[in-house]
């Protein structure tokens, strides 16, 4: 057995052990931390599978956005746990869920392990046509060129998620701002962290977006890093979340899908097909669409983490 194989087996076992611990963890907060650790370990697994774009997404979303969201939720649940009764699933429904999960996992494992050596794949054709798109990263080509319609629909789903989160507000808070107000004297350590991280993070986020055309990266990863920077500045109370009725906020949220859809329609008029790009003009068009996608993602994710409005709208 080579060192690489031993490393892979050890990594797989560690992922499995952390996942098992997360399921049996005592309390919501412990399970949340276990989940964050699990996400970071998965980043390593993606690197081993040579899926660097996915690893970047997993790192940015798992520790930056989802981690913050779940830890905040666990802390809020803790107050409810100690106040109310502990009513969790127990007995035969739990056993049924466990059996179902194991069956699905075994089915997936079977499918993956029984794949033929040369499985059905469109990779050769997509690499063959890559120069026509002007891109160097096949993942970006799949997302924005070959399957652009799916990616646009995903951005619409994000907007729907924000609408869903906002609809949880009480009637009198509709249109107000989520989260806490800006602090008079913010906690010094958090403020220090936010003030140093935010400029660097913005630089890294824009770099990851720009470099995604030719190397691992892309609009979603860059947007997620930018979103994380806004989240940390809001967490440090250096700024407060905007009013949900603010026009610029709503414009920024929909800018990504709207520009994407407009590009698709323009493709039907100018390039002979819905979501077709004019030859020779593909890369500038793709970067233009991606820029607005980055804006939308960087605004949508912090709004999802901030939650429903909890203060009355200012007049």
């Amino acid at each position, binding site marked *: 057995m080579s060192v690489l194989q031993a490393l892979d087996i050890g990594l797989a076992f560690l992922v499995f052990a952390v996942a098992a611990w997360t399921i049996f963890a005592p309390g919501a907060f412990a399970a949340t931390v276990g989940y964050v650790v699990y996400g970071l370990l998965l980043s390593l697994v993606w690197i081993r599978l040579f899926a660097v774009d996915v690893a970047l997404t997993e790192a940015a979303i798992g520790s930056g956005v989802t981690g913050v969201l779940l830890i905040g939720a666990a802390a809020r649940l803790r107050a409810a746990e100690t106040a109310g009764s502990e009513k969790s699933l127990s007995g035969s429904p739990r056993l049924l869920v466990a059996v179902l999960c194991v069956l699905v996992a075994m089915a997936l494992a079977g499918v993956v392990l029984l794949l033929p050596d040369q499985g059905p794949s469109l990779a050769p054709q997509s690499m063959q046509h890559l120069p026509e798109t002007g891109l160097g990263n096949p993942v970006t080509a799949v997302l924005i060129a070959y399957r652009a319609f799916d990616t646009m629909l995903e951005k619409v789903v994000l907007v729907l998620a924000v609408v869903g989160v906002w609809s949880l507000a009480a009637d009198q808070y509709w249109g107000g701002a989520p989260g806490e107000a800006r602090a008079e004297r913010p906690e010094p*350590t*958090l403020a*220090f*962290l936010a003030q*140093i*991280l935010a400029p*660097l993070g913005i630089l890294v986020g824009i770099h990851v977006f720009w470099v995604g055309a030719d190397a691992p990266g892309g609009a979603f990863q860059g947007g997620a890093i930018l979103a994380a920077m806004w989240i940390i500045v809001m967490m440090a109370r250096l700024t407060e979340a905007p009013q949900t009725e603010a026009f610029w906020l709503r414009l920024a949220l929909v800018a990504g899908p709207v520009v994407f859809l407009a590009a698709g329609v323009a493709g039907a008029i100018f390039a002979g097909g819905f979501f077709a790009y004019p030859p020779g003009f593909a890369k500038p068009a793709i970067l233009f669409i991606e820029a607005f996608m980055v804006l939308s993602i960087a605004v949508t994710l912090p709004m999802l983490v901030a939650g429903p409005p909890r203060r009355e709208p200012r007049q």
Partner: protein
Amino acid sequence: MSLVVDLFSVVAIGAGVFFFLAGTVGLLRFPDPLSRLHALTKADNLGLGLVVLGLLPRSESLLSALKLIAIWALVQLAGATAAQLVGRAVRRKGTAA
């Protein structure tokens, strides 16, 4: 020349791994959360710094090397800040946090 570079990498990375081990031993043996926090954030950061130092000569370009240094600086910042934040939380709630 490349033998010297390889030797440097081996020594630096080996030292880095030693500090990772030391950090974990501290994590296992220290009696209370604050000292465990120290073992974690100081020893592991130093270990990572030595690993980065060992990998610097092997990087593909100047930009890669600069990114490696930036990574280590950011982890230092994150470790120091996390130690302050978690330590403050431990002190506020008592050790049964």
